[in-house]
């Protein structure tokens, strides 16, 4: 069934890419736009790093590493699972009823519904920053493995988070798109910086409540060999894949629960 789901998703992705490739001018503009987004995301960090020297012991290259990792994770989920990101719109416009009328699992349909090929440029740029950071930090294969693990885990986490955010829409009747955005875009923005800089309560939220710290912070610590120096036991980064998988499971459960509620009460 999973292979089936992936094949359906690939078909949709292919169809969307083909259709969007027709607008070639728009594609180059999208790339230019993503470039400016990347610049304006990183520029404040660069300016501040240049002026202050470092952020809690993290150099600009290391901050760029964090940025590249979380951007790659989130951009790929944003591109692939856009159906969950747009879920509040589906609820408001009654598209969910249409989904219920097709002989496939709802989660599968929502996951494969929208594929935004234009976001590829954002993903590419996230990976570009990542590559430059890795090179300039001269990361060895061991460290790079951690980076890859972090990104993979990040994809699982963001998938779970965007599903949980979509689940919230069931209870708020599709009015809480902003709350979902805080979890996804806000979460990604917060993780551009090392979690150690935040006040205790906020740090705890990002480590235990919405465990985004396992998306890039802990894998990065492991890649840079600084886990214990930052005050964490050496095994913590190894927890990342499990924590991220748990987030995904939580998201799936939340969404299923919300769906069940919708089906009994209607809109």
């Amino acid at each position, binding site marked *: 069934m999973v292979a089936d789901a992936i094949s359906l998703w690939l078909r949709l992705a292919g169809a969307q890419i083909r259709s969007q490739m027709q607008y070639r001018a728009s594609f180059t503009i999208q790339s230019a736009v993503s470039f400016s987004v990347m610049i304006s995301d990183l520029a404040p960090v660069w300016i*501040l790093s240049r002026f202050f020297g470092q952020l809690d012991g993290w150099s600009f290259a290391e901050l760029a590493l964090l940025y590249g990792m979380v951007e790659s994770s989130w951009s790929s989920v944003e591109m692939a699972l856009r159906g969950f990101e747009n879920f509040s719109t589906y609820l408001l416009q009654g598209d969910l009823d249409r989904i219920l009328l097709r002989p496939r699992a709802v989660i599968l349909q929502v996951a494969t519904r929208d594929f935004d090929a234009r976001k590829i440029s954002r993903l590419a740029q996230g990976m570009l920053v990542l590559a430059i950071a890795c090179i300039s930090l001269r990361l060895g294969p061991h460290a790079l493995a951690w980076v890859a693990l972090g990104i993979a885990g990040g994809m699982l986490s963001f998938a779970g988070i965007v599903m949980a955010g979509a689940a919230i829409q069931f209870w708020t009747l599709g009015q809480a798109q902003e709350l979902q955005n805080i979890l996804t875009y806000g979460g990604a923005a917060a993780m551009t910086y090392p979690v150690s800089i935040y006040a205790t309560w906020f740090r705890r939220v990002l480590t235990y409540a919405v465990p985004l710290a396992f998306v890039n912070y802990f894998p990065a610590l492991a890649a840079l060999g600084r886990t214990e120096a930052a005050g964490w036991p050496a095994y913590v980064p190894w927890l990342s894949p499990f924590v991220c998988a748990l987030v995904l499971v939580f998201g799936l459960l939340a969404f299923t629960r919300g769906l069940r509620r919708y089906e009994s009460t209607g809109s």
Partner: protein
Amino acid sequence: MGSVRPYLQFARLAFQRRAAYRLANWTGVAVNVFFLIVHAQVLLAFFRARPGALGWTPHEAVLYFTASESLLMVVGIFPDYRYNLSERIRTGDVVTDLARPVTLFYRDVAERYGTAFYYLIARLPPVYVVGMLLFGVAPPLRWELCLFPVSLVLAVGVSAGLWYVTCSSAYFRDTANGELTALVFVNTLLGGMVVPLDFYPDWLRLIADVLPFRATLYTPVALLSGKLTDSALAFGLLHQAVWAGALTAVSLAIESRGLRRLATQGG
């Protein structure tokens, strides 16, 4: 320009349009507060490496960012992707607008001011108060604060002009969404949304001082935070006034040119 009454109507309608979405405002406040929490802590963390930099205390940096985040929506940094001029041009709805005996640019500006007034009372106070409570900041009571309303009015005007010019590219291309997004990010960077321009490297500071973007954010925000005084204040206000005038002239010119183009191409 004729009578002012219709434009006051447009402003009032724009205000009411926003006022209808109370829940959306509170979720928006949540978003502002979230980013306030994240970036204020980032600034504080950077300052730990080098306190008292350039005559700015960490406290003042947080005050600056609180003001910035509170004023974002008032000044109109983010566009309404669904209801804006470029969409009206693309779908051809602008034809009905142009059939009315009002200047489209002034109408757009009037609507901006209506929207700005809404956010001034609905968004600025709650976000600013949260900043005050969480970080213990308060606007310094200096005589320059009397000039803040002037600066704010000019800032909204410049912002309106920037949007109008950018949206007008839809006369010549299919959609302006790429340009709008780019404008947002260039504006936040060169307007000093996160980092006060004072910290920018000299060459970037020069660019920012010449271009119009600082007129929308940096000038009013720094003024409100008590960091814009004497000659810098005079320059800031003058800069705003000059750009407001220049953008008005450009917008009016574009409008007549765009009108001619529409007339030849059809709706």
